[in-house]
């Protein structure tokens, strides 16, 4: 047998014992073969128990409607970092990072309400002009007729700029924000990891906290507070007395929340249109379709593959009994390909009738606060690309991230026609 023959994952996923399937394996996402395993799980074991994996035993919820039912049942299914938080790998003890995405009621609600106004439609309208002019500058400065990495030059660049804007962070240091976000999500088993140990991660977090403490103190001493996120945290009843670890947690949450997700949707969008020229022709003929194309891009990408919960009590889901203390993953990436909820789910179709019926933003009390902001950035990006009628050629399939949580791209080489 030739050991170097590529594995046929479509076949393997169907033939291997059900109980051996481990959809938390980051390689499945790096190699872009995850869909075969979920096709089988949705069909044969929509609530599936993996009894052994490097991150311990866990349940996988793979059908759209079961995922919604777990999301809504936040009394039984906790997001709290006390039990391990929102990713399958437990981060407890000293490594626990408190942030409201990983808190339960009532503290979650109090802290979320502070941050919410910054991404309200009214506040977003104020940011729109600035976002647009920054996107225009970035697009106009791209090389023409020459290969470059879209991930670095556009997706990372634009999301970094956006974060700097939201935090009113020193603009010329914006790549630091990107770096902190990447360190926060890097998988230590990834051959391309940025850091080598949890200690190193803590050290980088220390730098991040130092920089943000400085901004915090500037705001505290300022005569007048601006509309940026840190000013909101400084003045908010529920957040002004946070301890440094909590402040760090919330900063990291906003950086990661607004970074990877939007970045990978931006790269994904170019890839999808490249693979589906008929859809791009449709959009080019009718740019108004962006309204539905943007949510479709976000569904099709599913930038966060899952969120984890921990059962606080024995609870039944889809006919299976989840035991108190068990951890489970709600696989948005699978629910978004569930034919019982979405028609032709494996197709990228930019004019769906109800394009916002997807799981990429989650549901329930933790539903993404930044959803409209993420959509806005994508919408402006494509409005400006269309206005310039840029012809973006993808030179090779993208290199993907080694992670079962962040579903995204490392590199995508493109060339824009001169």
């Amino acid at each position, binding site marked *: 047998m030739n050991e170097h023959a590529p594995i046929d994952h479509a076949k393997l996923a169907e033939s291997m014992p059900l109980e051996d399937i481990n959809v938390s394996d980051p390689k499945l996402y790096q190699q872009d073969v995850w869909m075969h395993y979920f096709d089988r799980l949705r069909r044969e074991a929509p609530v599936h128990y993996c009894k052994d994996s490097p991150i311990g035993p866990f349940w996988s919820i793979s059908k759209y409607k079961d995922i919604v*039912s777990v999301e809504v049942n936040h009394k039984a299914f906790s997001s709290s970092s006390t039990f391990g938080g929102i990713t399958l790998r437990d981060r407890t003890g000293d490594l626990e990072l408190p942030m409201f995405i990983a808190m339960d009621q009532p503290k979650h609600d109090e802290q979320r309400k502070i941050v919410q106004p910054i991404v309200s439609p009214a506040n977003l309208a104020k940011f729109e002009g600035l976002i647009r002019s920054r996107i225009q500058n970035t697009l106009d400065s791209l090389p023409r007729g020459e290969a470059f990495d879209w991930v670095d030059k556009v997706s990372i660049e634009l999301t970094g700029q956006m974060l700097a804007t939201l935090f009113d962070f020193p603009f010329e240091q914006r790549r630091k924000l990107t770096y902190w976000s990447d360190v926060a999500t890097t998988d230590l088993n990834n051959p391309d990891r940025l850091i080598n140990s949890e200690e190193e991660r803590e050290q980088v977090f220390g730098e991040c906290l130092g920089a943000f403490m400085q901004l915090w103190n500037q705001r505290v001493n300022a005569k007048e507070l601006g509309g940026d996120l840190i000013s909101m945290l400084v003045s908010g009843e529920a957040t002004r007395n946070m301890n440094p670890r909590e402040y760090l947690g919330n900063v990291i949450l906003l950086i990661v929340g607004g970074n990877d997700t939007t970045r990978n949707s931006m790269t994904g969008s170019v890839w999808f249109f490249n693979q589906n020229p008929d859809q791009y022709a449709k959009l080019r003929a009718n740019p108004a379709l962006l309204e539905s194309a943007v949510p479709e891009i976000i569904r099709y990408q599913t930038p966060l593959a899952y969120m984890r919960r921990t059962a606080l009590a024995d609870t039944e889901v889809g006919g299976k009994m989840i035991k108190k203390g068990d951890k489970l993953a709600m696989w948005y990436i699978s629910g978004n390909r569930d034919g019982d909820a979405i028609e032709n789910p494996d197709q990228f179709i930019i004019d769906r009738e109800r394009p916002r019926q997807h799981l990429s933003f989650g549901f329930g*009390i933790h539903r993404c606060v930044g959803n409209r902001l993420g959509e806005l950035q994508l919408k402006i990006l494509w409005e400006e690309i269309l206005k310039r009628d840029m012809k973006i050629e993808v030179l090779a399939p993208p290199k993907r991230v080694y992670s079962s949580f962040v579903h995204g791209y490392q590199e995508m080489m493109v060339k824009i026609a001169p």
Partner: protein
Amino acid sequence: MPKIHYVAHDGTDRAVDVPEGETVMRGAILNSVPGIDADCGGECACATCHVYVDAAWKDKVGAPNEQETSMLSFVDSVQDTSRLSCQITVTGALDGLVVHLPESQH
């Protein structure tokens, strides 16, 4: 069939017949009344079906339950007449109900 009035943010009144047992959200979707997104399809999990119940109808419609109250607490420009329309079931007693739509769903 009970008639439900959906008053848009600009004041336009769209009155449609909604069968008993359907929700106020579904009434809008079924009749293509704009202004209600209903991303979660009625599971009380997205809060994009937010409406303001007309003051005259507030008592008849009743108060939100706990889950709805949680979801409403994250809604932009929430008022004490706010409800999630997927949680209001249409009955004969609600014939003529007036709900006002917010400027946008978030």
